[in-house]
């Protein structure tokens, strides 16, 4: 059975085409990463799939339950951790999780044991009896995650689980999500970071302007991109000479973006070394030189010809303010 099966979902807010015919499907037990910039439609899709929004057209089922005809049935099978930690500051961590457990219709004993279990799993057991207002941003996100898992959902939706938290907490959350996945949880997560999708997702869908523009495993997408790149910054006077050097190494003209030049690095650090040697023999001292992973910008540049822009409001702000 497919965990999510969505056909041609359309959702417009006035003139904004938040979702313009999105179809995705994936089977149970995998992590599906939905990658896209702000305003691409990620949050709207999650809100549709968790029954918070009714699509204008299209059909979908989650965990085998039809979204349109049986939204309550869907709610029994899903867990949602939104873009902002929806936890209550003035309750303790445990109270937050237990409240959600009760709202999932677990009985008192089940709720208690389940809450202990998830709090333990996310390493918040020690602070479980402190009020959430004493928690850091990363701890709140973890707690939010715990609350979304307490009802043993068949499909878990995480909307940008690591946006807005510090790098250390991000790594901790990634570990946590990986552990959950080892436990067999089916997961749909959205992210703006290729690195995050790369690390966590079995399959990645790239979404832009309400449309799914590419889909595949991380490796498949990287093959499209050509993998790592070497990027250099040089003084303007050296630029023409540097372009020649890079062309010699890559066998093609480097991509110019802003003040930087970049070439594909199919051989990783060996390509980097080659570039350094070429620049050295041409007596060019680069201001900066790096071997880097392709970013979301590279994905978009390659797939759409335009950059991942922030031209629209983040989708949450938009949908929340709608009256």
């Amino acid at each position: 059975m497919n965990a999510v099966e969505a056909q041609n979902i359309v959702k417009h807010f006035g003139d904004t085409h938040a979702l313009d015919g999105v179809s995705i499907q994936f089977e149970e037990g995998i992590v599906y990463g939905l990658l896209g910039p702000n305003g691409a439609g990620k949050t709207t899709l999650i809100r549709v799939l968790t029954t918070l929004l009714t699509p204008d057209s299209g059909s979908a089922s989650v965990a085998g339950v039809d979204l349109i005809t049986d939204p309550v049935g869907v709610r029994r099978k899903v867990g949602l951790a939104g873009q902002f930690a929806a936890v209550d500051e003035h309750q303790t961590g445990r109270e937050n999780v237990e409240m959600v457990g009760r709202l999932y219709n677990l009985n008192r004993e089940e709720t208690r044991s389940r809450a202990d279990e998830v709090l333990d799993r996310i390493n918040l057991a020690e602070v479980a009896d402190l009020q959430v207002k004493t928690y850091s941003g990363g701890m709140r996100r973890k707690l939010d995650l715990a609350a979304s898992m307490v009802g043993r959902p068949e499909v878990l939706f995480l909307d940008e689980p690591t946006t807005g938290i510090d790098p250390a907490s991000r790594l901790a959350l990634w570990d946590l999500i990986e552990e959950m996945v080892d436990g067999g949880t089916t997961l749909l997560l959205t992210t703006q970071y290729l690195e995050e999708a790369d690390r966590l997702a079995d399959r990645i869908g790239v979404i832009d302007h309400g449309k799914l523009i590419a889909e595949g495993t991380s490796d498949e997408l990287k093959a499209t991109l050509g993998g790592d790149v070497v990027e250099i910054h040089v003084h303007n006077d050296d630029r023409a000479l540097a372009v020649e050097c890079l062309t010699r190494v890559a066998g093609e003209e480097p991509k110019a973006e802003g003040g930087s030049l970049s070439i594909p690095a199919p051989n990783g650090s060996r390509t980097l070394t080659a570039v350094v040697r070429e620049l050295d023999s041409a007596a060019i001292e680069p201001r900066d030189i790096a071997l880097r992973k392709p970013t979301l910008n590279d994905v978009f540049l390659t797939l759409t010809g335009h950059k991942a822009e922030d031209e629209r409001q983040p989708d949450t702000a938009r949908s929340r303010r709608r009256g």
Partner: protein
Amino acid sequence: MIHTAVITRRNVLRFIRIPQLLLFSTVQPVMFLLLFNYVFGGAITTGIPAGPDEYINWLIPGILIQSAAFGATATALGLTEDLGTGVIDRFRSLPMARSAVLTGRTLADLVRNSFVFSLMLVVGYLMGWRFEQGFWKMALGFGVALLFGYSFSWVMAAIGLAVKTPEAAQSAGFLPIFPLVFASSIFVPTSSMPDWLQTFAEVQPVTIVANTVRSLMIPEEALGLLGLDQGTLILQSFAWIVAIIAVFAPLSVRQYKKAVG
């Protein structure tokens, strides 16, 4: 039902744990009580024959209604905050009765009011307030005040969900409260007001409900002061309470769907 209880509990906990809320909902009504009784009380003649402290016996029933009305703004505020923080999204993604978000909110006001009312009656008792018609009638008055507060929470729910931000909810909530509370018999008998105001004050629900509670607590020989007899007052109070809920509960549900959709 369990869902409503869970949400109610959550909202009551907020009252207890947010110092400002707890202060606002307990200290403020007690301050009103002290201020009105000791500052204005001496200058106000109500006609209740209960010795030198007569004003407190006029004031207590009224001030319960006043604190219920002021306290109901917590519903407007609480709902707008929950809309902003994503808590309501979480609730809506759960297999729970959607009505529980609103009933759990208004019922939390009811729970808080039972506590605040009891506190005020204790303070009032120390200040000389007595219930003159026996415990059960006093308890009935207490119940009427609670029910009115509950109906008023639905008014505030509708207002909060219409304006959507906590700041706007705060000021919009008090718009209907001020004329209703002050142009009423809560603090003074309506007979001292100019004719045009008196006409409004005597028919509006706050006066009717305050006088109903009053009719169940003051000495029976003073009942004539209230204009209407006890039975009529009780009937009219229940009619108002039912009417307010019948209008504002469905309105709130509609506003809620609009606010989240």
